[in-house]
């Protein structure tokens, strides 16, 4: 059958619309703020082999992980054994396209006229999946068994009905059974929505046209990606870095990458990075793939809708058992710290050839925070959220201020109103972190300071703020950024508490304050080359003092009028 490009394009957009509709359904019917407010989830449609053909985000950290979940299902349950109405669940970090146990993927095969034609799949961060700590992730776990319930690619339903025995098992093993099961139902509702739409599309155009269009969608993605690849300078690019610690020992962890760009391939080689560590920062191969895919997308064409054809030129090399490719039963609950480093290493390595598309180092860590305890009614509460921070400056612009990290993408911050309405907390301040770092011709974006006061009797704080000891990198002689960190100010406690990068279930009492500080991004170029008018603008906006304008940027502002003193500025700058 001949295939016209119009039909392919219509089907491609209908599939994207189907993925987006299923995304809305999941968000609207879910019960965890991390899903419906933060949007820490993604929905997708794959072809019958598990190749991604349409995705709605969510989180770029999930980019590409959804197709691995479907492929893992097919490895365990061959296509011939699947039936309409089957619903599968997986969160296995080591094999099932998983990341950490909190990210639960649901998969459903889609049939038309008795034939398997596609899969609908979604993955969402459930607030609670059990384990040693409320919120399920923590910085001090030492094996996977402490991190919650494992779903090693299971049937959770057949014939459009869910398995009540499994639901009872989940309810008995999590701290918020109603919420967790509510999120499960929301995920299943989303699968069914996508299934219905895909069936409509294939019924309208016929299975044959549907299948050949899907193949063309993937091939077209590959052609476009190869065209972009051919425009990149060929060569080998490397970067290395240190992560603060694994949460247990305090020793820094070495990581590195070598990227080889040829006419045919984009090879990301992480060999030589540290072996897996005892603490919970280990990440697994799926997240490593998604990091490589995200950066490949960023430097080729970020605007083109993602599909697996686009990623065919990407090859990932890394021996098993490293901090990027941990093996069972390594703890992985805060895998995103290491996953983010995989992105940042690639980013740093490729910066010299993509300075028009990439910026200097950003605050990077998701800065994951959990505050848990019992509210005034004696009911358990768990606040789980990422923080936003400062991004690096680019060749033509200052860094963005208060934006979520690269692994978080299109997620949102929890609004202060939701926070105060749902949890026994008061947000005492929410402002820019204007630490005088990240200076440059273009300066890094500002981080944020968010401070909670505890209003209930007892609470606990778990936090993982990476880039605490190793701040964001500057580019082209730009200054490095500031550090992420958490300050706990105990009511009536010592005057100068220590700022920390990681905390596990730290006890808090009523009146205590928790100050969450995210980094200023790295600068680009020499500070003395910054446009004096831009320096003055920052002073007028209260983001920089007059004194620092003089010391860092060599710009002299009149103490009365705050006008630029051209003569004194010229003199200051000539000295440097």
């Amino acid at each position, binding site marked *: 059958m001949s295939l016209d490009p119009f039909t392919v394009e219509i089907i491609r957009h209908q599939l994207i619309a189907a993925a987006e509709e299923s995304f809305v359904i999941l968000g*609207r*019917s879910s019960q965890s703020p991390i899903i419906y407010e933060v949007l820490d989830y993604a929905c997708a449609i794959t072809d019958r082999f598990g190749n991604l053909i349409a995705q709605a985000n969510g989180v770029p950290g999930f980019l590409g992980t959804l197709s691995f979940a479907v492929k893992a299902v097919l490895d365990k349950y061959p296509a011939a054994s699947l039936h309409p109405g089957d619903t599968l669940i997986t969160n296995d970090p080591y094999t099932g396209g998983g990341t950490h146990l909190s990210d639960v993927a649901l998969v459903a095969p889609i049939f038309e006229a008795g034939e398997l034609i596609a899969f609908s799949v979604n993955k969402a961060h459930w607030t609670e999946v059990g384990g040693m700590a409320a919120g399920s992730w923590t910085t001090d776990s030492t094996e996977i068994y402490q991190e919650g319930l494992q779903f090693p690619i299971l049937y959770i339903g057949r014939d459009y009905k869910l398995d009540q025995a499994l639901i009872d098992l989940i309810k008995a093993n999590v701290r918020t059974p*109603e919420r967790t*099961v*509510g999120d499960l139902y929301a995920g*299943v*509702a989303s699968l069914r929505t996508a299934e219905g739409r895909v069936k409509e599309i294939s019924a309208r155009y016929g299975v044959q046209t549907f299948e050949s269009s899907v193949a063309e969608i993937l091939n077209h993605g590959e052609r476009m990606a190869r065209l972009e690849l051919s425009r990149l300078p060929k060569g080998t690019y490397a970067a290395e870095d240190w992560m603060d610690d694994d949460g247990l020992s305090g020793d820094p962890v070495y990581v590195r990458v070598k990227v080889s760009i040829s006419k045919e391939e984009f090879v990301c080689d992480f060999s030589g990075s540290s072996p897996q560590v005892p603490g919970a920062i280990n990440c697994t191969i799926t997240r490593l793939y998604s990091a490589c895919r995200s950066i490949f997308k960023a430097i080729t064409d970020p605007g083109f809708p993602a599909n697996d054809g686009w990623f065919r030129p990407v090859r990932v090399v890394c021996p098993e058992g490293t901090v990027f490719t941990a093996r069972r039963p390594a703890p992985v609950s805060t895998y995103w710290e290491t996953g983010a480093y995989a992105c940042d290493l690639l980013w740093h390595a490729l910066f010299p050839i993509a300075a028009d598309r990439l910026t200097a180092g950003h605050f990077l860590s998701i800065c994951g925070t959990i505050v848990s305890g019992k509210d005034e009614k004696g009911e358990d509460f768990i606040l789980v959220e990422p923080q936003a921070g400062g991004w690096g400056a680019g060749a033509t612009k200052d860094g963005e201020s208060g934006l979520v990290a690269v692994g978080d993408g299109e997620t949102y911050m929890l609004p202060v109103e939701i926070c105060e309405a749902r949890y026994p907390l008061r947000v005492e301040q929410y402002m820019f972190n204007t630490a005088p770092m990240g200076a440059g011709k273009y300066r890094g974006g500002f981080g944020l300071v968010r401070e909670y006061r505890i209003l209930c009797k007892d609470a606990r704080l778990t936090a993982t703020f990476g880039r605490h000891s190793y701040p964001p990198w500057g580019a082209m002689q730009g200054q490095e950024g500031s550090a992420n960190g958490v300050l706990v100010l105990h009511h009536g406690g010592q005057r100068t508490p220590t700022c920390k990068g990681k905390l596990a279930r730290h006890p808090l009492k009523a009146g205590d304050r928790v100050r969450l500080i995210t980094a200023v991004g790295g600068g680009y170029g020499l500070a003395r080359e910054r446009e004096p008018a831009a320096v003055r603008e920052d002073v007028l906006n209260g983001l920089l003092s007059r004194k620092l304008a003089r010391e860092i940027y060599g710009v002299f502002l009149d103490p009365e009028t705050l006008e630029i003193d051209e003569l004194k500025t010229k003199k200051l700058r000539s000295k440097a």
Partner: protein
Amino acid sequence: MLAADLRQDFIRTFIRSGGRVDPLELSALFAEMEAEAGILLREQGIAEERIAFQRFADARYVGQEHTVKVPVPRGKLEERDIAEIHEGFHRLHEQAYGFHLDSSIELVNCHLTALGVVEKPRVNRIDGAGLQLDKAQKGRRRVNFDELGFHECPIYERDLLPVGEAVQGPLVIEEPASTTVVFPDQSVRRDEYGFLHLVGCGKP
């Protein structure tokens, strides 16, 4: 557009978790909102007998953020009306998302829609005397029916079509503001008010 009623919406926050909704309290709130809405509509010149109300509750399962709109019975509410709101919520949630839960429900808003019913324009009967199908036909041409291919078919002028006579497709009906395409497996009939009734699914 000429037949649309005037409409105003009134919403009050009314958060009640679990089954703890007092029918008297809910009745009183809706009565108060109706009184307020009535004043506003009368100020706009709507006569008392033309004012109508529709009541809704925005509800969700405890823990959800987004709500589903559930109709609320009129008049003074009793316990069984509260039960009806709950049943309605489960049913509409099932309709919107494909599932309902055994979890408890939370009311979030009371929503009152006040309508000022306007006089609808009268649609006159057509005097069909003397109208004949062959006189309504203005020509023939080849028409592309997508998956059903090309067909040579008659083109009719809508105002000249006879009343009450079913005509088998494929055909096209034209008028100054629109065109109606009738597929090969469909038939069309113009009724005594001038409306076109199409029968058949239009698929291969």
